[in-house]
């Protein structure tokens, strides 16, 4: 976390990740919020309801009857040019699935927060990335946050990026580890946020003065090009995220990039992680470095668009082996970040062995010790396996 000192007009609050989401949406001046409660997201909507009720935030909060309707209402609001916001988790996100495609394909920059929670059955409310990663092909930008400050900052940044590339964005945080854990978070003054994020003003919107039909039946002759344009915009998003991030850094003193390197400059063993697990991994890397091991860390912050070039750049510097740790699984295949990293590196001239670890599903703790053991097993493991399970009870 940057900052360290408090400037005039800036407030530092000790808040949960959920409230960081609410403050982010408030600072971004979300105009229409439509949400449905689900553990562990409830604090987000409770806080936003209060903000709207006491007029701290000038917005219309639609208390919908399902997540599916929440996304549909956000889509409708965005189509008339309103900045819209929602938050959900797990089953709620899965219910939204159809409308996630709709938002992206209609090119509407809805922003949402998803609290990573395990999918049932059995019921489990703890952290697991499978819910959001199952939405990877919907056309949403996805940001995985490490701490509460980053959550707040990313909500604001994602509006800037999404409204530029006309695609929706999902800000992802771990259940409880971030959602219910309080951390100091700097709240910048509204005036500066307004300078950074001007009002959303799309070229085409539902407007009776300039009537257009959106999403009419489209033949194969034209549909294909519309998809090509979405992929182009996703690719543009890579540079737009970097641009939005660096201008954010200039204004607010904090930046995150597409990926975050931690002691990776001269690393021979590179661990790749995402979300809050990277804080644990950083401690493990420090401990291994103290013992003279050349371990390094790469945190993937942006999952869609996938930052292939950034990963290649880091690996090309002389990484000898890679371990990807996933708090998720694609059944019948392997960890999802592992798949993506492998596919980003498969055409590289210099082949680097990549090991995939699945850990911490359904909120199982991933400790510093676990990560040190992962690193050890990479060194001793000559045989490449698709999945190495971390800490399965035998």
């Amino acid at each position, binding site marked *: 976390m940057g900052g360290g000192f408090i400037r005039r007009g800036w407030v530092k609050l000790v808040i949960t990740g959920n409230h960081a989401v609410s403050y982010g949406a408030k600072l971004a001046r979300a105009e229409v919020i439509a949400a449905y409660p689900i553990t562990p997201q409830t604090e987000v909507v409770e806080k936003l309801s209060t903000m709207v009720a006491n007029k701290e935030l000038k917005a219309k909060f639609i208390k919908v009857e399902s997540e599916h309707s929440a996304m549909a209402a956000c889509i409708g609001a965005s189509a008339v040019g309103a900045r819209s916001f929602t938050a959900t988790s797990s089953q709620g996100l899965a219910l939204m699935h159809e409308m996630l495609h709709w938002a992206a*394909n*209609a*090119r509407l920059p809805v922003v949402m927060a998803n609290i990573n929670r395990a999918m049932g059955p059995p019921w489990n409310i703890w952290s697991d990335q499978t819910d959001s990663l199952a939405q990877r092909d919907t056309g949403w930008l996805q940001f995985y946050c490490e701490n509460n400050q980053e959550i707040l900052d990313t909500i604001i940044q994602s509006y800037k990026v999404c409204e530029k590339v*006309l695609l929706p964005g999902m800000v992802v945080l771990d259940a409880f580890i971030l959602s219910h854990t309080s951390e100091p978070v700097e709240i910048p003054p509204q005036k500066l946020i307004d300078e950074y994020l001007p009002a959303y003003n799309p*070229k*085409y919107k539902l407007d009776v003065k300039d009537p*257009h*039909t*959106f*999403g*009419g039946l*489209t033949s194969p002759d*034209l549909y294909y*090009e*519309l998809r*090509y*344009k979405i992929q182009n*915009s996703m690719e543009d998003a890579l540079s737009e995220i970097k641009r939005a991030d660096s201008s954010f850094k200039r204004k607010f003193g904090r930046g995150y990039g597409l990926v975050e390197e931690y002691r990776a400059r001269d690393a021979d063993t590179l661990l790749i992680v995402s979300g809050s697990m990277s804080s644990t991994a950083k401690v493990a890397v420090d401990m291994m470095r103290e013992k003279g091991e050349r371990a390094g860390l790469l945190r993937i912050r942006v999952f869609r668009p996938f930052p292939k070039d950034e990963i290649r750049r880091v690996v090309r510097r002389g990484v000898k082996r890679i371990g990807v740790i996933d708090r998720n699984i694609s059944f019948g295949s392997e960890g999802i970040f592992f798949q993506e990293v492998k596919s980003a590196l498969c055409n590289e001239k210099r082949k680097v062995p990549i090991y995939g670890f699945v850990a911490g599903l359904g909120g199982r703790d991933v400790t510093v010790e676990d990560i040190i053991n992962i690193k050890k097993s990479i060194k001793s493991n000559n045989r490449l396996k698709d999945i190495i399970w971390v800490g399965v009870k035998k």
Partner: protein
Amino acid sequence: MKKSGSKRKKSNKKGIKTIIFKGHKDMPPCAISFANTMYNKTGKWRSIKPVILKEKCTSCLLCWKFCPEACVSIKNKRPVIDYEYCKGCGICQEVCVKGAVLLEEEKK
């Protein structure tokens, strides 16, 4: 999207527009309409043709009112069928209380 105005719009005398996209750069980000459906001459669907008999017509406008194609217009107080769009459903003949609409077989 650089210049979305570069798509080709052609308008004829009647104000009917057709739109041609030369490539993806001309296209809007999503499927957005830029003209009405008048380019689509649905008259070619027709197998029977309604004809209004001037001498029997009282301009009661029932045929205008019940036309699903919105292709009956009123000119000089008289209903006129636009055969470019009339699909020949026969409703105008059915609703006419004066028997002023005849159905003819469409010759093609």
